[in-house]
């Protein structure tokens, strides 16, 4: 469409880019910070930013689910896990592998490849986020979910059940002869 141009970005686009920068920045901090808890907290920012990006893309329901699940459950799980594994206050030395250059290489290579391919494929494509709004509402998404995706939905419920059982089994996997197996934190207290 001729009306689109790089030179005159719309408000939504500007917002998207700004939030995107926040997301990328916090994401970078998540994978580079020496302080694990800080990284986890930055992950909240990153997830929240992605939630806002969803909103900007017209996926309202997904956005709030993102906040609910990631902010309320996943991050709490992470913090919980960090505390149980005695994440120290301050920098954790040796948090990263000593030779990071292969990982950096892979990361940069992946970025280069993906961006190149994406740019080549979609440099002339525009879309209207508002088109997705009807779908992004609770009603639209619910309709799509239960009209077209009931079976995957049910399969997913089975998966969740399996994960639940698995998590319980894992955390109960202690035999009598294993001896005292207290959490380090409790042992201290």
């Amino acid at each position: 469409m001729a009306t689109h141009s790089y030179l005159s970005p719309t408000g939504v686009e500007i917002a998207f880019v700004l939030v995107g920068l926040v997301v990328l920045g916090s994401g970078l901090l998540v994978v580079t910070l020496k302080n694990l808890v800080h990284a986890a907290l930055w992950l909240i920012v990153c997830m929240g930013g992605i939630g806002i990006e969803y909103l900007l893309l017209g996926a309202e329901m997904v956005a709030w689910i993102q906040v609910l699940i990631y902010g309320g459950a996943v991050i709490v799980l992470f913090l919980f896990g960090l505390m149980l594994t005695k994440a120290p206050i301050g920098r954790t030395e040796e948090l990263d592998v000593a030779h990071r250059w292969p990982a950096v290489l892979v990361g940069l290579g992946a970025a280069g490849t993906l961006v190149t391919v994406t740019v080549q494929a979609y440099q002339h494509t525009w879309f209207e986020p508002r088109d997705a709004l009807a779908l992004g509402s609770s009603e639209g998404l619910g309709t799509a979910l239960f009209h077209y995706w009931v079976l995957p939905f049910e399969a997913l419920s089975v998966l969740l059940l399996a994960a639940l059982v698995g998590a319980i089994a894992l955390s109960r996997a202690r035999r009598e002869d294993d001896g005292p197996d207290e959490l380090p934190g409790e042992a201290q207290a």
Partner: protein
Amino acid sequence: MSSLSWWLEVALRIVVIFAAFLVVPLVVGQMEHKAMAHMQGRLGPMEAGGFHGWAQLIADGVKFAQKESVVPDAADRTVFQIAPAVALIPYLLALLVIPIGPGTQVGVALDLGLFFALAVMGLAVIGPLMAGWSSGNKYSLLGGLRSAAQLMAYELPMLLSAASVAMAAGTLSLPGILDAWHWYWLPWQLIGGFVFFTAGLAELQRPPFDMPVADSELIFGAFTEYTGLRFALFLLAEYAGIVVLCLLTSVLYLGGWHGPFAEQHLGWVWTLVKTFLLAFVVIWLRVSYPRLRADQLQKFAWTVLIPLSLAQLAITGVVRVL
């Protein structure tokens, strides 16, 4: 509606809600002081300001403001300092979407209001976690750990019982739910209301679910190292949490602004009345019930509340289909 007046209105709403956010929790706090004092026969809080010790809360506020805000050496400064804000702000955001009266008497009439409220309330629990970890104190850490375990356990029944209401109303919008409300929802959603309110109490770590801050065991749990205004902010967050929980409960299960009469004009009064009644119950419970142990807490969540909320969902579904 012109653009200007729209912006004005938004600004007005935010100011009103912010004011309410600052005032109502204080009222609840004052209420707690007084109610507890009366119930427990405590004489101290009866002195300040003369009649019934009405200025006790102000005295507390002045005391908090005067105190030095200490950050321990072993603490993670940034996180330690941000934690109170993280604990407080989500409740402010949640207030935005809760209607207190019919029509436009709501901060933002969000299509996904219920979802939004629950999502940001879920975020609020990160505050105590941050505080517990960043204090560099093992009691704080244990408090934080207990918080996390407790929060994860009670998130599920809360969401499930809220889902029951949404299912009954056929919408996630809070005004929409109230629009669909009928008096017979009271018995219909009774179990859900009980579960929601109880789980909410546990999320707020109010007694009898206050094991994370159990003062006799952990001094004050995650908040042990906090002093001065930051501690006051945590207290404020707790009372704001009570307000939001009671508001949500009244909106979801007690009909919100619906009342026997004068619904259209004085709906907000009904809402407030119900909210404060519930807040009183919260305070009452604190005074009346002993603290639960960790295992009792978990057991209660998984073996009582979750089955109950599932039963409520089933009842809702059956009635809806009928």
